């Protein structure tokens, strides 16, 4: 055990952490997008994961079945925060059908299933979340806001 400190010293120690926390994730984690509250939202929900305590407040306003405005705030780990921010960017301007299809793509991506090139195009930067696959306990963090959004849309459309 002796000399452990020096053995692992320097800044190279966290090498493959980059598999999970790609630059794009760290960026969204440090500067989350679309955090402003939405006035008179059509959907306004809280999602949380009691196991890690992550909690997000998701709001959006629809115009002609498209998401006109979105606001997400909350607290969580880097993965769940970045994921929420990426989600907010993606959904803006998309139709509810497009959003639900994207949720389906990301679910399959994180399960390790293949997604098509067209799906990858839609996801764009979000494909970076796929790195989480190697860290199974963190998949829930990546999915949290997406699952919440999907449930909310399903409920809204059923009304």
């Amino acid at each position, binding site marked *: *055990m*002796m000399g*452990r*400190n020096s053995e*692992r*010293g320097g*800044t190279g*120690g*966290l*090498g*493959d*952490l980059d598999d*999970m*926390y790609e630059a794009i994730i*760290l960026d969204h984690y*440090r500067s989350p997008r679309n955090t402003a509250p939405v006035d008179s939202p059509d959907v306004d929900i809280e999602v949380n994961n*009691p*196991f*890690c*305590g*992550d*909690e997000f407040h998701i709001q959006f306003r629809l115009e002609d079945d498209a998401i006109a405005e979105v606001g997400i705030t909350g607290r*969580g*780990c*880097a*993965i769940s925060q970045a994921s929420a921010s990426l989600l907010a960017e993606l959904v803006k301007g998309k139709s509810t059908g497009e959003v639900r299809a994207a949720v389906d793509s990301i679910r399959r991506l994180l399960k390790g299933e293949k997604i098509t090139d067209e799906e990858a195009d839609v996801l764009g930067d979000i494909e970076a979340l796929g790195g989480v696959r190697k*860290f199974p306990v*963190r998949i829930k*963090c990546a999915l949290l806001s997406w699952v919440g959004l999907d449930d909310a849309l399903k409920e809204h459309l059923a009304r």
Partner: protein
Amino acid sequence: MSISDPEIVTRSRRFDVDAIRADFPILSRKINGQTLVYLDNAATSQTPRQVIGALTDYYERMNANVHRGVHTLSIESTEAYELARTKVATFINAPEPESVIWTRNTSESLNLVASTWGQANVQAGDNIVISAMEHHSNIVPWQQLAAKKNAELRYLGVNADGALDLASIDSAIDSRTKIVAVTHMSNVLGTVVPIVELARRAHQAGAVILVDAAQSVPHMPVDVQALDVDFLCFSAHKMLGPTGIGVLYGRKELLEEMPPYMFGGDMILEVTYEDATWNDLPYKFEAGTPNIADAIATGAAVDYLTELGMDNIWEHEQRLTAYAVNQISKLEKVKILGPKDPSLRGGVISFIHEAIHPHDLGTALDRQGIAIRTGHHCAMPLVRSFDVVAAARASFYIYNTESEVDALVNGISEAERYFIR
């Protein structure tokens, strides 16, 4: 815990951590290219080759169902199984082996008491007193019992510094208190709870006292007679033993009056198609084929701990905890929960990083081979009372070293360099 006793200081010189580490095969495992630094002992402890050997030996040499078998293997396994019970009884100074019941884990021990003793003794209008720093396993069974019986569940308070609020005893314990069920050491804060005082107060009020000793029996000398407790619950997997086995100690007079918990197998005396009668203690509470191999391996774990000496173990961890509290406190962005004074706590250190979420910290440390636990530590209401939902936790045992504490502190700094720019 007379750690200033000169005799013990002498013995502790013989507490040879390098020699201890050599007994734990897993400690030479590489994790992400680094030698494992295992600091998740409050969740489960590692297993020395002596305990693994007891398991192997059992299955290779004497595996047989216990009790009532007339063949040699059954006679041998029965003797080994009962010898292990006697070892545990001696370890906690139980007056007799039959007041030691084998269960699956601390949680089952607690559920057993809540279901049987609680069912028989708690009535509407009575109250049950626990503390605000209990593990879920020592909260929810009492919530359920209280709801079922229309009894009241009361909480002893916890101060901002993580100590038990002694003033809250006066308002919590009264003549309608039937049981006081408290942890001996918090698995989040490390706080050591004054059991002797609580036992005195509980008995004064005519109540019984149960102690959740999951975090104390592995780390300090525990004497059920000196503490004067009525029930004591702990798990083998946190004290060098195998998973799947725990202990309920109970005062014999109480156990004798309690109805059984589960039915069938060894707990039966006689069955007709209409009715059944129960076997004597401890079998009354051991339904079906017991966890024979793991009971015997628990005996081996007790032997290992006894040979090291529980006073020495406690002293080693006190020293390590003092060092760790001191070193971690130097990190500006880190806040330690629980008592700062090492003499008021054991080697469980939960902390919060003001900029890094515990899960990210845990993952970053894991990349460096350092295993800590992150989350609510099965004590959600307590963790929330510190205005967070999750914390990081490092917890020590006999094989941990100061250089591992250094690795932890250095690892946190690495994580800061990674996440904070």
